[in-house]
Every structure is written in C-alpha cells, then in structure tokens.
C-alpha cells in the first residue's frame, strides 16, 4: 500500500510536471524553428519552391527517419524522462548529455535507473545545457569576429571543405566500430551514384537500408567486427 502511494507521488511530483514542460517546450520549439523561413519570406519575399521542398524532405526523411525513433528509444533508459526531453531539444547526446548524466550519478553516488539516479542525471544534464549554450553563444559571436579577420583562402577552405571533412570523419568513426560494414556503406554509394547514376532518393534508400539489411545478416551470424 505504501508502494502505491509512493508511485502516485512520483507521478504527481515528477512524471506529470516533467511531461508537461517537455511537451510544451519541444512543440513550441518545433514551431519556432520555422521562423527563419517566415523571415526569408517577410524580409526578402523568398519561399522554398514546393516541389524542391518535398523532394528534399523525402531525401532527409529517408536518411534520418529511422533515427527519429531509434535514438530516443535507445537513450531513454539512461537519460530518464526529463533528460530525454532536454537532450532532444538541445542535442549533442552521446558526446555531452550522456557523460554529464553518468558523471553526476557517479559522483553523487546514486544508481542509474533508480528515481534518485534519474533526478541527479537530470541535474547534470540541465547544467550541461547551460554550459553548452554559453559555449555556442560565445562561439557564435567570437567566431564571427574571427572569420572576419581570417584570410580569404582559409574562409573559402572552411566553406567548401567543412562538410566533406566532417562527413569523412564521422564515417571513419563508425567504421572503427563496425569494420565489416565500412566497405558496404561507401560501396553501395559508389555503385548507385557513380555507376548507376541513380536519383538521389534511390541511392539514399539503398545506402541506408542496404547497409542496415546487411548488418542484420551479419548480426545474426555474429560476424560484426570492429571494437
């Protein structure tokens, strides 16, 4: 009987208010992130053309759609309810929120998965949000000034090569973990883009689901190599 009261209490004092804040802040943020497009229209009369917009939505959904579900589901157990809402609003989950949550729990001495653990993890994560926002804000202003005084060849280099360098780096990072899949991802890509000259959406679908399918086969046979 005491247990029921404790559970109801936890629901009243934590789960319900957390869900309310989480739902409101995330959905409001979703709406607010659209305002740059409104600005482009109001200030410059520019609107993304409908067919291009639908095409690119399809491309990006093919690329990341699975992650909309898989990521929250994977991290939820570690982040807890409030931690999940915060981490998916502010991002940087695996490199920032998870370590902060874990360290906070470790130092205070609570077990993960417990109620105490969840509260302390949330405290750690909320701190990381503040610190990261300060860093990103500083970078935005100081960084702009820095870009202003860099020689043009360097700024051009940043502009042209930041994306491919980052893409290559991330590919390298995941290749380390899944050695056997490394040739597959790029292999399918080179085949579809280079040889078949397939349209982008087809190439993406084959790259993502092809790699996932082969991974499943390897997983079932226990031959996923790497770290």
């Amino acid at each position, binding site marked *: 009987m005491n247990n029921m009261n404790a559970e109801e209490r936890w629901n009243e004092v934590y789960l319900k208010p957390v869900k309310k804040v989480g739902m409101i802040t995330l959905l409001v943020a979703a709406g607010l992130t659209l305002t740059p497009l409104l600005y482009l229209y109001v200030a410059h009369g520019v609107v993304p053309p409908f067919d291009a917009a639908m095409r690119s939505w399809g491309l990006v959904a093919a690329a990341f759609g699975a992650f909309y579900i898989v990521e929250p589901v994977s991290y939820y157990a570690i982040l807890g309810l409030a931690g999940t809402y915060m981490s998916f609003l502010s991002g940087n989950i695996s490199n920032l929120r998870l370590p902060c949550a874990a360290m906070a729990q470790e130092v205070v001495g609570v077990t993960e998965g417990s109620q105490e653990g969840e509260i*302390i993890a949330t405290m750690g994560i909320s701190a990381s949000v503040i610190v990261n926002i300060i860093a990103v804000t500083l970078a935005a202003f100081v960084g702009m000034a820095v870009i202003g005084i860099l020689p043009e060849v360097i700024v051009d280099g940043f502009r042209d090569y930041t994306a491919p*360098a*980052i893409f290559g780096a991330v590919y390298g990072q995941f290749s380390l973990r899944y050695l056997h899949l490394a040739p597959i991802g790029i292999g399918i890509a080179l085949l579809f883009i280079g040889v078949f000259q397939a349209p982008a959406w087809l190439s993406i679908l084959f790259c993502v689901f092809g790699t996932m399918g082969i991974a499943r086969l390897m997983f079932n046979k226990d031959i996923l190599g790497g770290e």
Partner: protein
Amino acid sequence: MADYLQVANEFGLWLIALVVVSICVIQAILYYRQCMKAGKEIGLTEDQLKEGFWVGAKTAIGPAAAIFIIMVGLMTVIGGPMAWMRLAVIGAAPTELTAARLGAEGYGVAFGGEGYGIEAMAVSWWTMIINGIGWLVLVGLIGDKLEPVREKLAGGQASWLPVLSGSAMIGVFGYLIGGDVLTLEGPMYAVIFGAISMIILIKIAEKTSETFKPYCLGIAMIVGMIFAILLG
C-alpha cells in the same frame, strides 16, 4: 561574401536565433527547479542535488569547448544565426550539414556551388528545420511512452539497437562521402583525410585519455580541410 550568406547573417535572424536559444535555457531552468523539488521529496539532500548540477557543469566544459571549432566551420557554410540556432537546438553539425546539402540536392544544385542562391538556401533551411522537427515532435508527443517502444524494437535482443543505428549512420554517411569522393577533387581529399585523422585521433584518445575524445571531430575536420586546400 556570397549573396545568400549575406542574407543568412542578417540581424533579424540573429534575433530569431536568440528566441529559439532561449527556449533551451528556459527548459533547463524549469527542469532544474522541478528536480530540486522532486529530489527533496524522494529523500535527496539539497547538497546532493547541487553537486549533481556542478559535476554536470564541469563535465560539460571539454565537449562544449570542442564545439567552438565546429561552430566556426558551420558558420562559414550556413551563416552565424542558423549555426547558433541549430547547434543550440538539435546540436549536431553532421546532421545539419547533411540536411542542408540534401536541401540543395532537392533543389537541383550543388551545395554552395553554382546556382546555389537564396532560393536554394531557403530549401536547405527548410530541410534542416523539418528534419529537426522530426525529433522534436516525436519526442514531444511520445516521450513518456518510449520504454514499451524500445522493448518492441529490440525484439528481445537489446544489443541489436546500437547496431541498427550504427549501420544506418554508415549508410547515410556512406551516401554523402560517395558523392564527395566521386568529385576526385578537393572534397575527396577532405573526406579521405578527415576519415584517416579521425581514426587516428580516436585511437589516441582511447589509449591516453577519454577526455580527449570530444575534440577529435573538430581536429579531424581541420586536418581534412587543410589537405583539401593543399591538394584540391
């Protein structure tokens, strides 16, 4: 500076970015207060709660500093306000760059290349935004129902989930680097040396200190860039 980048850096956008960034801060403050209250209810002391907060803050400094370099890179590509906004919300440069590039492809031009003007940029922005909304709406609506979904997805094999996401990542980024490698020019070198240096850096981090890991992406990005400029 290109036309579209000048637009991307306009003051009105800085204001919008400020509003969006504020939501993150407000949410963090609200949860801080809710947890202080709930924590005391279940028996934690004020000292413990504050300690949790400060440990989180200190642990965040390293990874947050590492983001600085990436911000500079991102800002030259999509402008200051959007980089600020997107890295405060969603927070993943590779994801944003991917979405921006797919936006250009949907429009029919090369990202940042010929024919990439304000209209193409609008499509890039749309793509980044609608992609981010995917996570925001999903978690916003079913955040509290994730546990049963996880059990279904894992299908009894919890170790499959990380493999699922890891393989999907390799698929997406394989597609992206595929296009870059096929240029046989600057981007190809950026990819190759970005990948090689990342692998080396991660290996070093694992052998020496875990706290070095957050810096790997930023450094690998610079190395990739340098080789691309030299060889491209």
